[in-house]
């Protein structure tokens, strides 16, 4: 009797991690990055959504790849209903059949969305930003106005680049040599010339901001959102709108998970997130660029890198990589970049 009780208790203990966390009935579960991203989406989209529909919203937070891995193991019976991720990582979800096709009839606000934000039949842009040159004028004597300035000898030992995703600098180097992200090899020689200029490579947004704050990496290829965040914190960084080649656009996207039982609610949530009012609020809070052309942008952000307000601005002030090429090339790019630029 006692041994049977022991076995039962042991099995019960083993089952604990397998039981999914309790969710409110009919809650819409949104997968998103943690910290400011989740807090802002909850405040700006989630709470108004609940107020309008009565459907509670819960969040599954984590890093880009953690959430992708979770989605993969839960394929067919998703733990979340709706997913935010970067546009090229969304291609991995799509390749594995993890997203449902979007029903545009259920997204009337999508009529106001910039053409560039329609990434595929499965995912749609929620906001935009750029990777551009950002620097601290108090630590760098010469003005930086162009991408090509990064190659100046004066910046030797001052540059910090992302090594988790070198696609931006690889694309820019290729553009400078008459190529693009598809025939990126054209920029190889130019990229190698950057090797001695780099003080550090960063793997996370937090590292990037720390390098800028401490002055260890006072010139960076940096996410515009992070640069504006530093400015808010009183760090005098200059966000460059390069005059030779545009900033490299990043688009975060939202999609409905395949197999969700909350597809209608998920579409309602996306539709709300794409509305003018919510987009205006997202711009104000996150310092991102709106995908809804009718969104209101604070005067301080108008014309700034990553804030596109018209079809012409999307085209002229930003370079949008081909998502599929980026997703396919990234592993090879990283390998080449590590061997030829990162390694001393």
């Amino acid at each position: 009797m006692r041994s049977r009780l022991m076995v039962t208790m042991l099995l019960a203990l083993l089952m604990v991690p397998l039981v999914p966390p309790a969710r409110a009935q009919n809650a819409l579960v949104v997968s998103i990055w943690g910290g400011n991203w989740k807090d802002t989406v909850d405040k700006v989209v989630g709470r108004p959504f609940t107020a309008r529909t009565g459907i509670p919203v819960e969040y599954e937070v984590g890093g880009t790849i953690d959430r992708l891995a979770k989605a993969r193991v839960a394929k067919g019976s998703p733990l979340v209903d709706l997913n935010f991720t970067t546009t090229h990582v969304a291609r991995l979800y799509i390749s594995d059949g993890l997203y449902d096709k979007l029903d545009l009839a259920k997204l009337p606000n999508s009529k106001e969305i910039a053409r560039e934000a329609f990434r595929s039949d499965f995912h749609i842009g929620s906001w935009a930003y750029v990777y551009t040159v950002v620097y601290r004028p108090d630590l760098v004597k010469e003005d930086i106005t162009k991408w090509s300035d990064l190659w100046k000898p004066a910046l030797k030992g001052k540059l910090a680049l992302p090594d988790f995703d070198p696609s931006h600098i690889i694309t820019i180097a290729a553009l400078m040599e008459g190529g693009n992200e598809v025939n990126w090899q054209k920029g190889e020689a130019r990229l190698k010339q950057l090797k001695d200029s780099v003080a550090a490579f960063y793997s996370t947004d937090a590292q990037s901001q720390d390098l800028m704050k401490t002055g260890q990496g006072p010139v960076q290829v940096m996410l515009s959102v992070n640069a504006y965040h530093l400015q808010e914190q009183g760090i005098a960084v200059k966000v460059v709108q390069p005059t030779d080649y545009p900033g490299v656009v990043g688009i975060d996207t939202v999609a409905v998970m395949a197999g969700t039982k909350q597809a209608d609610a998920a579409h309602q949530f996306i539709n709300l997130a794409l509305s003018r009012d919510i987009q205006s609020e997202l711009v104000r809070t996150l310092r991102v660029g709106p995908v809804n052309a009718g969104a209101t942008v604070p005067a301080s952000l108008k014309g700034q890198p990553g804030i596109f307000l018209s079809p012409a601005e999307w085209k002229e002030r930003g370079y949008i990589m081909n998502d599929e090429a980026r997703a396919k090339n990234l592993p090879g790019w990283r390998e080449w970049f590590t061997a030829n630029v990162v390694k001393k």
Partner: protein
Amino acid sequence: MKLLLLPALVVLAVFAAALAALFRWSLLEFVPGSLQTGGLTLANLRGVLAPQYLGAIRDTVVLSALTTVLTLVAAYPVAYALARTPSRRVRSAILVLTLAPFFTGAIVRTYAWVLVLGNTVLAWPVPMLFTERGVLVGLVHFSMPTMILVLAAALSHIDPVYERAAASLGASPARVFRRVTLPLSMPGIVSGGLIVFAWTLSAFPTPELLGGGRVKMIANVVKDLGLDSFNWPGAAAFAMLALALTLALLTALGRLAAGRPS
């Protein structure tokens, strides 16, 4: 009685299943731009033998060995003081200072080193941050508390009578230490050395933050392949290779330690 083995067997089965899954992944073909994998292949295992990955393995082993030696040298005097001081206050103070880093967490400690090793607080004559030197400093600091505690435990088991006997027979303090204290504390040195070496082999946050992307150890490469390149088969292959290497090194060191003269 056999039933009592059940929890251990379950844990063993879970670990074995995880390792088997990892091994299976290492043999699957990586398809760039997709989560789908291809058929069985040895390409991933061959791929991790590329110079840059072998370089990471070499750096890991060298950094682990240096960390072990430097930690031992730095920790021994502290452990000796902790074990031998007659003052309870001094012992408490050393113990508190030794244990304090445990309460701050690896990330916080490493971020503190980012500030110290950079040029914002001190002007270093040679670059420290984002170099192997800086990573080594961080690893030694991270390993110190454990090494001190292991050595102090070994030293406290040495009966001071042996040292007094050697001294009464005319041995100088240095000779007493070299011929009596050091050999008798060898079990602590071996245990502490093995612990520090083993966990430095799997160090992640210290090289990640203090290496500035330039210093990559095994765990950093696994993370790069798996999380940044989406190359899960490649990451699994590298993890398997690292696991085999770690087991081989620790087995060799264990045998070396077991075969030492008593």
